[in-house]
């Protein structure tokens, strides 16, 4: 499928000299939900703001549906809706007026029926005549979503949509996201919550220090996550694995005291019972046993930690460089 957003060698250096984005390459597929994970200050918001036209890129190109975001900003921006992270709203206008304002800014004619439907979906209809300053934080976030959707965008950016949001709104929001996806809208969201990315995204990207460290299909990522390791510690270190044991996908630690077995938890059988039998038959006695599982969180923490510690470290075997689809 053609990418709807294509980012090439995008870099951003702010006036103070801070490099927020470093040579980002990313292609976003039409109709997908892409989750961008990353700690605070990783560059997620800068990336989104650049695509939307709020921040000027220092170098590189971005096209939205083949329209360059600078040369053809009208065509590209028309397709995009943005829900910002902060509750950046005016104070004295009403909910109804502000969403009409948003729709008009995008050059669309008035459509009361659509906007009514939108407000009802966001349970904002009975607040339509309220001034924005009188709304609670949660309601303000709903208004921001309504504003972003007021012009029926093809691409929706949600910047930390669930930060400080109650359960009710989170549920409503994911319902809307699902409905939008069904209607073919591409959704890009940033989040701190890994479970959220796991639950809703088709692809997951990890960004830190302005670099895209990983971008992968969630399914593939989860497959990796489905693998567990059994580490068996033996009393007397051995030099080589017996023929019985080498039939299994096991490895011996350097000091010969630990045998590591990698298995898939989702398989019919894990092979643990027969492995333990084989260990027993090899005449080895056990000292201790433990299992480990890498979660998305582990991968994320490792990536981010390595990246923070040493700029080259992240290029280890676990990391896949971003690739075009």
């Amino acid at each position, binding site marked *: 499928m053609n990418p709807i957003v294509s980012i090439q060698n995008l870099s951003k250096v702010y006036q103070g000299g801070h490099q927020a984005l470093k040579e980002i390459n990313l292609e976003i597929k039409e109709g997908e939900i892409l989750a961008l994970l990353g700690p605070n200050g990783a560059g997620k918001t800068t990336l989104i703001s650049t695509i939307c036209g709020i921040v000027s890129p220092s170098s590189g190109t971005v096209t939205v549906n083949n329209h360059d975001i600078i040369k053809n*900003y009208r065509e590209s921006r028309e397709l995009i809706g943005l829900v910002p992270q902060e509750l950046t709203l005016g104070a004295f206008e009403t909910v109804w*007026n502000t969403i009409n304002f948003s729709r008009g*800014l995008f*050059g669309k004619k008035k459509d009361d029926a659509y906007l009514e439907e939108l407000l009802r979906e966001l349970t904002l209809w009975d607040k339509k005549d309220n001034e924005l300053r009188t709304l609670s934080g949660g309601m303000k976030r709903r208004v921001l979503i309504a504003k972003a959707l007021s012009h029926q965008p093809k691409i929706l950016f949600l910047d930390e949509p669930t930060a400080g949001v109650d359960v009710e709104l989170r549920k409503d929001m994911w319902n809307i996201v699902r409905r939008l996806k069904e209607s073919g809208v591409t959704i890009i969201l940033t989040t701190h919550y890994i479970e959220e990315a796991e639950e809703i995204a088709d692809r997951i990207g990890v960004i830190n220090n302005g670099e895209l460290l990983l971008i992968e299909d969630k399914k593939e990522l989860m497959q990796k996550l489905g693998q567990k390791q059994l580490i068996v510690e033996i009393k007397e270190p051995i030099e080589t694995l017996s023929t019985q044991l080498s039939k299994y996908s096991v490895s011996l630690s350097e000091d010969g005291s630990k045998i590591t077995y990698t298995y898939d938890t989702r398989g019919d059988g894990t092979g643990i019972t027969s492995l333990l039998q084989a260990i027993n038959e090899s005449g080895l006695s056990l000292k201790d046993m433990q299992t480990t599982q890498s979660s998305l969180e582990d991968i994320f923490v490792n990536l981010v930690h390595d990246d923070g510690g040493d700029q080259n470290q992240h290029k280890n075997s676990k990391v896949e460089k971003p690739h075009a689809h």
Partner: protein
Amino acid sequence: MRINFQAIKVIYKYEMLRAWKTLFQSLASPVISTALYFVVFGSAIGSRIDTIEGVSYGLFIVPGLTMLSLLTQSIANASFGIFFPKFTGSIYEVLSAPVSFFEIMVGYVGAAASKSFVLGVVILITASFFVDLKIAHPVWMATFLILTCISFSLFGFIIGLWANNFEKLQIIPLLIITPLVFLGGSFYSVSMLPPFWQTVTLFNPVLYLVSGFRWSFFEVSDVNVGLSLGMIVFFLVACLAVISWMFKTGYRLKE
């Protein structure tokens, strides 16, 4: 060239609605202050001043008084209009919308200038209750009025873009515009000053505005009318140039 008229319309409407909500305050304050000026300057002081170049003092100050409100209100309206969304952060929406900077400017400045124009008319109507106001050249009067409204709304827009706090928003109108208006011959004729101060006043741009505007009423002026018109147009073009530079560089809007 494609123009997003819908966007201009909503920005204009949005800004006009803001004034509509404070309609009483927007209209009552100029009416009251104009009335006060007439009571104090026109009656109390005016009774001791005979006439200036054949025009009674009460009548003489009408154009200056109108200009005073027009300048301060144009700047206040336009600067606040663009500063407030910057302050709340809601400007993100305008920046990420398919609108050109030209359209953004037309929306905001157009609304501010419209409000000032209405204000100018209200002040003149108020003045007509106190003095027998006759306008010698109505078309020129309207031209000066409209050009001033637009020019100073543009100027206010620049201040609103430039200001990154409330203090900066206030400082230019307070420290520069008000003194310039008071010292620009709004309430006296420059010919009443000693020669040295007459020369100094020639460097005050407000003099040209007030003088031209006054000429359209009474056919008396401190400086040549053509020069007045030229100065306003020059100021308008200069403001446009500054704004276009600001937009080109994304000054204080985009990083």
